[in-house]
């Protein structure tokens, strides 16, 4: 059995666990713990402390694993471990919480330093009324126009599929460019 993996990363409460949950064929193996910090508890009740793990069986011989990283900075020692051997990565950004954009940018730079693999950035929670426009977010995140920055709703399977496909197209394009 052959396996490949992709990593879903981003700041605290960006929607990484939901993203994996939307497409995984198994119940996401999650290492969520109840939040103790009052400030973070105002955002959500539980958070990932080690990783999330989802699976998509491609055929008899190939399986895609999806790993979600913990969003809180104090668990960042897990990031490098999870990034090892990844095919590509997705940076999730909560479109409704501009206070996390700077951290998202920092996480993106950290993962770029780990591995020169393709990546896409997903503007999650685009269905919320106070979501920032993707174009404004692109400026705020200082993303180059060449970087794929895609609107996303992590609870919507078709939206998640689109993100995964865009990442795979980038991987394919890079392989083809590498041959030239």
């Amino acid at each position, binding site marked *: 059995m052959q396996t490949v993996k992709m990593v879903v990363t981003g700041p605290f409460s960006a929607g990484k666990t939901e993203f994996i949950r939307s497409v995984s064929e198994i119940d996401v193996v999650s290492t969520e713990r109840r939040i103790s910090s009052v400030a973070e508890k105002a955002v959500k009740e539980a958070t990932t402390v080690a990783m999330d793990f989802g699976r998509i069986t491609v055929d008899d011989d190939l399986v895609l694993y999806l790993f979600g990283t913990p969003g809180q900075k104090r668990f960042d020692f897990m990031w490098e471990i999870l*990034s090892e051997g990844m095919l590509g990565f997705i940076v999730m950004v909560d479109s409704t919480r501009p206070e996390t954009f700077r951290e998202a940018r920092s996480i993106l*730079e950290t993962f770029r330093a780990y591995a020169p693999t393709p990546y896409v950035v997903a503007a999650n929670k685009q269905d919320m009324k106070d979501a920032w426009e993707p174009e404004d977010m692109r400026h705020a995140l200082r993303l180059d126009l060449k970087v794929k920055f895609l609107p996303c709703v992590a609870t919507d399977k078709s939206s998640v*599929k689109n993100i995964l496909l865009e990442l*795979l197209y980038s991987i394919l394009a890079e392989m083809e460019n590498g041959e030239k």
Partner: protein
Amino acid sequence: MALRGNLRDFTITQLLNLINLAQKTGTLVVEGPSETAQVAFRDGKLSYAQVGQSASSLAFILHKTNKISSGQYKAIQQRSSQIPDKELGLMLINAGYMTQEDILSNLQQFFSDIVQRLFTWVEGLFHFENDILPPEDRISVRLDLENLIIEGSRQMREWEQLQDEIPSLDMALKFTDRPGSNLRNINLSVEEWRVVSYINPRNTIRQIGSATKMNDLEIRRIVYGLLQAGLVDICRPEGAAPIQQVRVFPTEDKEEQKTLVNRLISRIRSL
């Protein structure tokens, strides 16, 4: 009980506060990630500091602060290696080369800079040696710690923010290809120009910092400004060996790898 411990448990700010409040006399030795600092205090006031093996001699400090040229520094070293700092100071004053205030302010600035650097050290061991002071021939100063602590705390917050913005100094910089932006129309400081002159995807930020003699905080500060102004972008250094040697695909064959990605695409589409 000896004052010793780990910076993770007891920060530089806490240490300086303690030395200040207890009006301690002695030398604080901090073994940082790559170098060791020795900072001496008299009655809770900063009197002397050095990092690494190079003792903070007067000639060394005046050279570091660009008050004397490399040639002058060498000449002083050759002629006065046996002359104590106090005597050398008097010689410079008598020769009309510097005033006493010049010398003292240079020493104060140099020692303060070393202490400020310590605020960025979050890992390392420390111990405080009571009553041990720098050699008699060194010129010591008397600097209140309160301002250093306030400034250091401010820098620490800035340092944390800059680390978030620029987590790795092993990445390179490239100019953004935004139409209409022209560096000549932008007011840059001398330090910024020095950094700009080294910007090239082949040079890491760490290498630029080293070439321009800037510490991690200084180079991060300038790169942050250039990033915010949209003048540069962070990129992977050209020609650098891939950091990750871990196998990404289960096969080495390029065609098989492409087939594998196409299989993944088909599967995701069918979800």
